Each structure stands twice: as structure tokens, then as C-alpha cells.
């Protein structure tokens, strides 16, 4: 029987909101899909296109960037910059022949442990449906 595809997802979480939200999900013992690997950054605005694209080019099946809700950024405006960059990244993903849904930007606050679990579980499920990253599964690309 074919083994069920388990995606490999990279998640950049901002230190102040989303990373704390992930901590809360853990301390409230919420089950979270293990296909996402967390990388802590100070602000979602730190995640430049280079990092997201590197992850995809090196075979990540999906990239999640999560920051504070609009208006709640610890650095006031960082999440807005992240949002703008994301609009652009989605287009770049298309150029690379990748489904834009492989990258996702979410707002998760420090008090939203449950939401963190929901976002990650849903994203992992969506990526599982999309299947492996075509850049790695198709050696010709």
C-alpha cells in the first residue's frame, strides 16, 4: 500500500504574537499537526521573499508566515509590510509553476492557541491535498 503523503511545511512565526500563540496551543495541550516546523523570527516583516522562496525551492511543500493581527503588531506596522510582500509572493509562486496556495499568511495572536492549531491543521490538510512540491517531485523542473 502506498504510504500516505506527509507534507513538509515551514512556518515562520513572529516572536510576539504567533510564536506565543503556538506556545499557548502547546500549554493548553492542543493537538497540532507535526508536519509544520516552526522558525521563530522577531516580526513577520523580517521574512523576506528570499527566505520563503528558498524554502520552496529546496522542497518545502508549503510555507506559513504568521504575525500579529492588523493593528496589533509589536513593531506597529511590520505585519502590513508582510502582507504587501505576500501579495507579490503569490504572483512569484505562479511564475515558478507553484500553486499560490502553498504559501499562506495568517494572523494569530498570543491568546489564540486554538486558532494556531486550527490554522496549522487546516494548512497541513490543504497541502496534503495539493500533494508534494512539484519542484522536488518532478526532477525535470
Amino acid at each position, binding site marked *: 500500500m502506498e504510504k500516505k503523503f506527509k507534507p*513538509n511545511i*515551514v512556518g*515562520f512565526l513572529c516572536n510576539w504574537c504567533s*510564536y*506565543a500563540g*503556538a*506556545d*499557548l*496551543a*502547546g*500549554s493548553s*495541550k*492542543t*493537538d*497540532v499537526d*507535526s508536519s509544520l*516546523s*516552526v*522558525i*521563530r*523570527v*522577531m*516580526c513577520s*516583516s*523580517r*521574512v*523576506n521573499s*528570499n*527566505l520563503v522562496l*528558498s*524554502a520552496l525551492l*529546496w*522542497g*518545502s511543500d508549503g510555507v506559513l508566515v504568521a504575525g500579529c493581527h492588523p493593528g496589533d503588531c*509589536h*513593531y*506597529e*506596522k*511590520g505585519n502590513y*509590510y*508582510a502582507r504587501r*510582500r505576500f501579495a507579490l509572493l503569490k504572483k512569484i509562486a505562479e511564475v515558478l509553476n507553484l500553486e499560490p496556495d502553498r504559501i499562506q499568511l495568517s494572523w494569530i495572536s498570543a491568546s489564540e492557541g486554538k486558532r494556531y*492549531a486550527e490554522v496549522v491543521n487546516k494548512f497541513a490538510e490543504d497541502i496534503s491535498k495539493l500533494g508534494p512540491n512539484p519542484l522536488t517531485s518532478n526532477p525535470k523542473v
Partner: protein
Amino acid sequence: MNKKIGVYVCECGPNIPERIDIDKVIEELSSMGEVKTVKRYSLLCSNDGKKFLKEDIEKEELTHVVVAACSPKEHENTFMKVCEEAGMNPYLFQMVNIREQCAWMIPDKEEATSKAIKYIKAGVHRVLFHDPLKQKELEINVDVLVIGGGISGIEASLSLAGPNRKIHLVEKTDSLGGMAGKLSQILPHQGSKIKLVKEKIEQVENNENIHVYTSSDVKEVRGFLGNFEAVVKSNQENKEGIEEEIKVGAVVLATGFEMFDLKENPVYGYGEIENVVSALEFEEMIHSEKIELKNGKKPKSVALVHCAGRKEKGYCSKVCCLYTLKFAHYLKDNLPDVDVKELYMDLCLPHKQDQSYFDQAKEKGVEFIRMDEVEKIKKSGDKIEVEYRNNDKADKVSVDMVVIAPAMVPSQDTSHLAELLNLPLDKSGFFKELHEMLDPVATPMEGVYITGCALGPRNIPESMTQSHATSGKILSSLIPGRKVKPEVKVSEIKEDLCTGCQTCLSVCFYGAISYDPFKGVSVVNEAICRGCGSCVGSCPSGAIRSKHFTYYQLYQEVMEALR
């Protein structure tokens, strides 16, 4: 230098071993080339644990340390301190979160174990790319510039001034006291009357550590916490145009408020109709103990109109209900036959004593009329008619005198100072606090604080409390003889890669980046930078590096995640 990494896995009591097979983790990690030692410990954050860690780092002569335990939000600083005590640079340390984000969220033990291994390996790869960052220390000036000589500014100055700390109090008018100084009396349950402000002014004038600049403006402020330079320009008759440069460590903005200009909305008839006065004019009447109509007679009936400008401005000014109640009491006490009507949209009686103050006014015969909006105030014979609408029903009252309570609006200097200091304003034009609940007097500029009505409408006790809050912030951050420690994990710009496009300047919320026109590159002021990395993300030429969150460090984590 030969790199020797030590990996320490904390059990956190039963928390981690319940879900993670630590023996397997140790086995996997031991096979990594750079790892000199992998050890487990029952509770690493305990005193015994810290002692063990310190001694082991020294014994193994480690250069880098990875601790796999709880969230870095819990104990990153604890272990960085241990590393420092053991003679290491504390930034050659990486904390790996295998409790909250691993043991506690992945129910399957095997899965959780392999995830933990992945995270720790990422930590090991990452820590190899860490730079030994240094905590800088800067000399500080502990003096404070207070802008605005109202009750907030006065209170901030009084609570800050001391033999080791000089205060420069700048007031744009020719006297201290501000709006509070114009009030005839403060509410009865708030203690003494105008005496309070007078006494405070006297205290300021007698305090040798407070230098008062009246009729003066602040023209320029630049710098950062502990090191600000400001230019104060005098508008006094004999000193007009004279500029003085002062050096301070912190700035308090206590610029207060102004009254909504009633002439902006013609329905109030203010300035057109006789005996239609603003609340401040009525305060003056009480002050001079002359409540009279223009013809010298005592009014037989007075309408107190609340909420003028509330619809235009979009917020409740919070204090008008109480001071109009104060007017009503005054009228009833001093002109026994007077008929007093209060017309309000909503009554705002937030403090515990307010309800009884309101009830007493009712007992004295004050009539309270709810309205949606004033339609028109107009003259009708000897009387003034206030036409209003309530639930779509038009009605009116006819009185001798109308007192209007206008909304409190930001003072004129607010926008100018916001521009000067690169501070955000809220949508009503008041200064915006860093966080309404968590940091209500701070601004994005460290060392710049706001107090009182510069933040929005509030009463005198609230303003004074806030001034104490700003003082607390300043007293605890600028201690005479100490140095300030700026953020270590800041951005740095590689001059040879920078093209001088200045995109980073536009995204930096703190004004930490400036442009050097001679070199044609952007420059980071490390004392102001908070290390968010917005500039790093926006730099099109990759010239900016975020210390401790560099591309290579994060890339190691990405690669390990994908292995």
C-alpha cells in the same frame, strides 16, 4: 577556533519524557560531528540545574550551547545568563522549544521524538552561525524635557525633579496651569478647589531643579533614550527668537487639549447670539462670582447643552457631564430660583461618586432632558430657544442663558510635535499610546512619553496618575550613574551592498535609519533600532542583516526542517 557544542536536554520534570524519548534524542544528536556532548537533566532551570549547566560548560570547554527545553519566552534569558557566567558569549547559545511546541502538541511519542530531534539539530546548525554579539552600554543624561505646563506637565515635573535630575518645563503660554488652571473649582469629591493647581504651580516655582520656560516652543528634538538634544525657542517679549539648546535623557509630552471650536457648527449660534456661552466662559463667570446675562440681570433659566462636537469628532469627551453637573449645582446653590435644564445625548458618570452627585442635582430640581441632537439654538424675543430632536420627535426649551460643553480636541501643537518626533497619531488626532492597556504612556520612540489629555480626553486625577506613570517609566530607565543598554539584536547595513534607495528609511517605524548623502548609503542608529527586521525584509539588494536572525541562521533552520 575549534567549535565545541554542548546540547542539554531538559526533562522539565515529567513534562518532556512523557512524550519524547530523550534517550533516542541523545543517541541521534551524539552522532553529529560538531556536538561534543549531549546530556539530559531533570530540571535545568532550577538552581541545581543552572549550577550543573555552568560547571559542565566549563568542564567540557564548550564554545556553543544548545538547550532543548521549554519555550525561549520562558527561560532563554535564564540560560543566556548561565552561559555568560560560564565565560561564554551569551549569544553563542540557542534555545530549542521541545516542550510547548513539541511534547505538548504532538500526541504520538514517536512523531514528537523525531520532531524534537529535528528541532534540536536545527538549533545545532543554527548556533554554529551565531556571532558573539556584545551588549553595548551608553552614558546617559537623566534630565527630562517636559513639554506643556498644564496639570499633567506640572505633576510629571514635580514627581521627577530631584537633586540628581533637572527638569526643563516648556510652556507655550505666559503662565503655568493650563486648562486645569482655568477651572473655577474642581469637583467636590476630588478634594480642594482651584487651590490644587495654584499650590502645584507654587511648588514648581520654588523647586530649584525645575527650570520653567514660559512663552516658549520646542523647535527641535532629536536623539534617543538617554541622549536627546532639544532646541527651545522663546517668544517672550524681551527674549523673542532666542534659542536655547538643552540636553536631556527623556521627553514627556503633556501638550493637553483645546476646546472644539463651536463656531465650526452654526447650529449652536455661538458667537452670534447673546448669552450663549461656552463652558470655559461659564467657568470664568463662576470664578468672578458673576453669573449674569449681558444686560446685567441674573438668568432665571439656564440650559446646559452637553455633547457639542461629539458627532463631528466621533468620541465622548468623558468629563463634560461632570462639569456641567458642577455648573448645575453651582447655579442651584447660588441662584435659588433658577431653572436648570441639562440636555444630553448620553450621561457619562464613570466614577463611584458620580451617581450620587447626579442624584443630588436631581433632588435640587435640575431637569435632565435626553436628546439625539441639537437642531438649532436661536433667539426668540428675550429668550433663547434650544431646538432639539429626541427619537425623531422635535422639541425645544426656552431659556435665558445657554452654556455649551464642547468636545475636547487635540492641542494645535500635537501634529507638529508628532512630526518632529516621528510619533503616530490616532484617528482623532491625539497622540497614540504604544498600547492602550499594556503600555499606556509610552510611544514607539523609547524615552518619549505622553501623559494627560495629549492622549485624549481625561479628567484631572487620571492625568495626574498618568504623569506618575511616565515618571515611573523614566525613573526606572534613567538612573543616575547607570548606563543604558540598547537592543543587541539590531540591523546592520553593509555599505558596499547598499544602493542608497532608502526603502529601509520608509519602513522603519522608529526612525532608526538615516541616509548618509556623502557615502550614498543608509545608516542604522543602533541605539534606536529595536531589531524587528522590517528593513531586512524590504531591502532589495540584501544589504541589511538582522543580527541574531541572519539569513544564514534562519536558512539552517529551514534546511533542517526539510531534511
